[in-house]
């Protein structure tokens, strides 16, 4: 072997090893994140954590019960608003739509998807907080629903399109009309994918912080309605993390662990259900 060939072989080995190293580094970040969260947060998890209100720094026994409930509230309302709109838009894109209209809707959905979440927050603020002169969970829910809509629309569309044409034609040939075909045949056929798309979307918005910062704001107490400022898990994590108190930091870790566990579980579940079918939308 010539010197030149030896050099090529060395370069080959070095570069391919570097690529393997890159893969190792990137994959391990997930475990590093999980590791730190577990290490720092698990000791603060307790029954109190899930049920009590936060206490001032220095006092023990506080919890994030209001943040957990608040998050659930805000996400629930956002889901109620956003899922149906996203779902029907997805049906529109897959089953109806002339060329230009469908193209426009799809383009706008992608546009909406790409808008930074903080800008969505500004919009919700202008539309609800400003006229009402106060912060509210509703504003937060609106912001989150606006993020949920394009995610749901695109994933619903994708899974509907995967239903084979022959199923549609079979139903129509039996005399069913279009909406019955969609409702009774196509959507049920695609339901696994559609549902997991929805789960992933909801998981995504439950972790969002920025759109809530000046819509639902925050609340040290249990919130009593959707027109009140409401605390939420992500917002609590943020404020606790940037605060100067150690016990607040502890709570941030614990809350982070809870949030991440929920989000990851939803994602893993969804991907396992899907893995027998097609791949996920981006």
């Amino acid at each position, binding site marked *: 072997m010539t010197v030149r060939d030896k050099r090529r072989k060395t370069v080959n080995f070095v*570069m391919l090893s570097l690529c393997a190293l890159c893969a190792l580094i990137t994959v391990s970040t997930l475990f590093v994140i999980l590791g730190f969260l577990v290490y720092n947060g698990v000791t603060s998890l307790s029954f109190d954590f899930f049920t009590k209100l936060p206490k001032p720094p220095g006092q023990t026994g506080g919890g994030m019960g209001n943040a957990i409930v608040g998050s659930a509230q805000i996400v629930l309302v956002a889901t109620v608003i956003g899922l149906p709109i996203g779902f029907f838009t997805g049906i529109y894109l897959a089953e109806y739509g002339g060329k230009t209209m469908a193209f426009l809707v799809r383009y706008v959905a992608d546009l909406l998807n790409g808008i930074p979440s903080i800008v969505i927050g500004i919009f919700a603020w202008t539309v609800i907080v400003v006229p009402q002169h106060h912060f509210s969970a509703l504003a937060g829910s609106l912001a989150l629903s606006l993020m949920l809509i394009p995610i749901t629309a695109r994933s619903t569309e994708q899974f509907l399109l995967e239903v084979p044409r022959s199923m549609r034609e079979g139903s129509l040939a039996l005399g069913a009309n279009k909406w019955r075909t969609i409702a009774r045949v196509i959507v049920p056929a695609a339901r696994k994918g559609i549902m997991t798309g929805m789960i992933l979307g909801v998981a995504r918005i439950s972790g969002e912080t920025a759109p809530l910062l000046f819509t639902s704001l925050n609340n040290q107490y249990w919130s009593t309605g959707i027109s009140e400022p409401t605390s939420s898990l992500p917002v609590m994590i943020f404020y606790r993390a940037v605060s100067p108190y150690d016990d607040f930091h502890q709570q941030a870790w614990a809350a982070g662990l809870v949030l991440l566990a929920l989000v990851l579980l939803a994602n893993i579940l969804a991907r396992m259900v899907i893995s027998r079918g097609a791949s996920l939308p981006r």
Partner: protein
Amino acid sequence: MATSSAAIGTGAPHVARRRAGGDEVAYLVVLVFAASIIVVTAAIVWQLWVHSSPAREKFGFSFLSSKLWNPVTDQFGAWPFIYGTVLTSFLALLISVPLGVGAAIYLSELAEAKLSNTLTFLVELLAAVPSVIYGLLAIFTLIPLMRDYVDPALQNALGFLPIFSGHIYGLGYLTAGVILAIMTFPFIISVSREALLAVPREQREAALALGATKWESTFDAVLPFARLGILGSVFLALARALGETMAVTMVIGNDPGVHASLFAPGYSIAAVIANEFTEATGSTYLSALVELGLVLFALTIVINGLAQLMIILTTRKGSAKGG
């Protein structure tokens, strides 16, 4: 559309008409929902425009170039935030593109199918981690790491360069760039890996048959073939980095100035909105923040548009090349 002649067994015309009516209603319902997306998006643009008007009227285009951000004197300029946003995103890509493409190469060319799929699945899970959690980690683990090890090392080696000079705090542009890089890994890796897997086997074999090593065939034949897809992934990652709020807010240092050193604290558009929106008093202040939101909106539209273009070009070129 149902035809009455196909209604077997229930050929009554009134049934057919009812069915056809049901279709029309369904169509309208679905259309309304779909159209609402267009309406809402238009509303977003409209509201951003309207609520930024005091600032826009007062500063005009100089808003974009002015370095001054002073709530006390009601002077607002966007430049420090544009600078911080672009700089941190650029740093993020600088780190994550080589790492991500390298990992994608491993996953598509070297790892066997099952391992590759499992690892890709794990990497894609990273995309689901909420931004505030990245921020949480960054504050307590990344900042000390940067402050105690990475930044001093860089300063020792390259401190003569202005970008590596100055006091080290641990937070700042570079740290924000690093956490953003980690957040963009999954986009680069996932999309690049698919672009690489889509390269036909014959391209690799053509290079290998000429006596190329595996690396040479990957670098010279496979990567160029996949370059559009990889570029698309970069734009996707860039779009994500530009709009990223929480993680950056938590480590950038919140300094509305323009600094050459990467170790210096800075600010990004999303971070200043997140921090100051609820504190803003006066319509000029608030509208300046809204105008910043408008600028960010415009930036991400452009980048996302480019990413879409790349993806369209890749699919079209792929089918043309097959011939």
